[in-house]
């Protein structure tokens, strides 16, 4: 089942005296991965929170397909991985991952497959305190996938992962949501990661966030090391950097 399209229509969101998002209109296409890049504190996370229904817009609308975020959340069709792994210290890795399925009221039969996939085989019965930061992060990502969500929200999920693991995860994980047609919104600081993982990149301006550029990456090209080394990859990265710099100057 392909995930729904996420649609922002002229959204404004203020927190006290700070306007985080203003006149924000964007579409995250169904079944695609859309990356959000932009300067620190520009409101990327607010966009994710609006999709998750953790906060409501002051003006405008946020639609997930034909539904509002709360409806999708109630079906257990949303999942999230934060920058901070937020694992329960009293649960083992396995049962922390299973929590994602439990909360979404979905079967948890592929927990062990996921554990292997994120490279935590052999640590399933360990508690978070016994893991390194990167391992905890991988467990959190596995937890977000276990419920097979229609919409997946990733907020800097690889921030704390070491370079080698990060590269491996960047290769191994995307097929998991791509193949299932999950609609993914990815917040990242790494332009390369955005180009590598996403189908489209939305470059956001400084606060209040608006879309500076909407760049489609290479459709249909396999995300492998050849792609990483290709000219297309470099060109895309350059375009995004350029857009970011224009935004910063403007």
């Amino acid at each position, binding site marked *: 089942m392909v995930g729904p399209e996420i649609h922002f229509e002229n959204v404004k969101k203020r927190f006290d005296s700070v306007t985080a998002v203003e006149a924000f209109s964007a579409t995250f296409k169904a079944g695609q991965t859309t990356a959000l890049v932009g300067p620190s504190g520009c409101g990327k996370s607010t966009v994710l929170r609006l999709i998750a229904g953790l906060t409501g817009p002051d003006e405008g609308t946020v639609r997930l397909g034909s539904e509002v975020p*709360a409806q999708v959340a*109630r079906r257990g069709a949303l999942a*999230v991985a934060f920058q901070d792994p937020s694992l329960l210290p009293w649960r083992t890795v396995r049962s922390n991952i299973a*929590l994602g399925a439990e*909360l979404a009221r979905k079967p948890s039969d592929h927990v062990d497959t996921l554990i292997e996939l994120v490279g935590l085989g052999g640590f399933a019965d360990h508690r978070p305190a016994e893991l390194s930061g990167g391992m905890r992060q991988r467990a959190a990502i596995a937890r977000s996938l276990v419920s097979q969500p229609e919409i997946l929200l990733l907020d800097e999920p690889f921030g704390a992962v070491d370079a080698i693991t990060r590269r491996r995860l960047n290769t191994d994980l995307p097929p998991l949501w791509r193949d299932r047609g999950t609609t993914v919104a990815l917040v990242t600081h790494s332009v390369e990661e955005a180009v590598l993982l996403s189908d489209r990149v939305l470059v956001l301006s400084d606060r209040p966030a608006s879309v500076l550029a909407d760049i489609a990456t290479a459709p249909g090209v396999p995300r492998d090391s050849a792609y990483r080394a290709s000219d297309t990859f470099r060109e895309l990265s350059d375009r995004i950097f350029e857009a970011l710099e224009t935004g910063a100057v403007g």
Partner: protein
Amino acid sequence: MIWFVRVLGICLFLVAWEFAARGVPGSVLIAGPSEIAEHIQSEFALYTRAAFATSVNAGLGFVFGNLAAIVLAVIMIVVPKSARLLSAFALLLFCIPLIASGPILRVLFGPGEGPQITLAALAVYYTTLLALLVGLRAVSQNWTDFMAVYGRHPLSTLRYVRARASLPYLFVGLQISAPASFLGAMIGEFTGAERGLGVLTLRAMRGLETEATWALAIISASIAMMAYALLGLLGRRLVGYTPVILLSAPQGQPTQNLWMRVAEMAFIVGAVLAIWQISMDVSGLNRFFAKRPGDVFVFLAESENLATVLSALSETLGSALPGYLAGLGLGAALAAALILAPSLGQVALPVAVALRAVPIITTAPLLVLAFGRGIVGTTVVVAVMIFFPTLVACGQGLRQTPGQIVELFRSYGASKWQTLIKAQLPAMLPAFFASARMAVPAALLAVTTVEWLATGQGLGMLMAMTASTSNYNMLWSCVAVIALAASAIYACVAMIERRILRVYASEQLS
């Protein structure tokens, strides 16, 4: 080797005690260890039965009181709007002095164990409630967000996250309440119970049976200490992981305008008065001793009565304040000292538990004998009453400092002292403030007891006079005034707490 030193220390202590008891010629106030041991041996059956009776009541009170605390805490977390009203009720109920509640409980329950169990429950629910609330709120916003993303109700956060995250705090509450429940059951026996350690203590003190008084103090302290240790052990077993407190960034406070606050206050006051009136009416309690809000209002409307009560209140508050501050300071300071020198704990903690477990009517006269009837004696008694819960709560708070932060400080070569000041004390703050709030009613109860037994002034004396004058209007007016004062002071402490926690632990303010 350490064991040897410890055993030697205990032996030296006992020998010194024995000499002190024998050295004072004709002493009838201090009993030596050998006399006490002999006495316990000769009255073994009696003390076993009494200890059993009191322990059963304390145990039942402990269970009921803590269950009530857990239910209240859960309601307050799940329905945050109810929190203010419920915490006001919880505080006010805790403020009702024994001298007012005792006769009512006895009339309601008739002969039997009811009042002892109820008073034991009343002695514990409040500390557990506050400790548990700190624990239930010590959850980062990530977790509440996480649950919302999966479309789950706050109940799920409670079930999956808060319930377990609060366990260490619950056990602190349970540990503190073990001696308190024992004390509550003993004092409950003063309402006319047939048997128990409280009854025997009373008899021993009046009978000048010094060995018996000391034996009873030692027995009750030992039982309380065992309960304390057992719960500690159980807590470590059950919790079984190092808890982490996640400090999240401060959030903006929902600004409430003045009128909203006034309306809320009025609502709470109205609800309290209504419950007071209705609960007494429904139980069919006689107006002679169970005064209603209207009676108190009419009584205090006479300026002479109001003046009497207010001047007594100012005496009471004046003598409570130094002990309150000293008890809090001492508790926090000792908790900090235990971090710097952990071996100190093996000496300090048992003494602290023992002081808390021996009934105040036994300790107060001895403390008054040692420190006099003036402000020093009063201060010491009040400080002793609140020092122990503060110590335990702050100790727990200090251990909550995330390990990474402590390691970070170590890696910079920071001394234990620097780590304490810069990392651990801030982490202790939520627990410290919970203690500071918890100590408000405790200090008032302690000071009124001292006033009754030793200084003969203030609200404690006014209330004690009810026994001979049947002036229950005065008694309930004092109760109302104490409750009001406690709420006001509590609110002040809470205000300071909010200001400070906004910087250090904002998750507590949700």
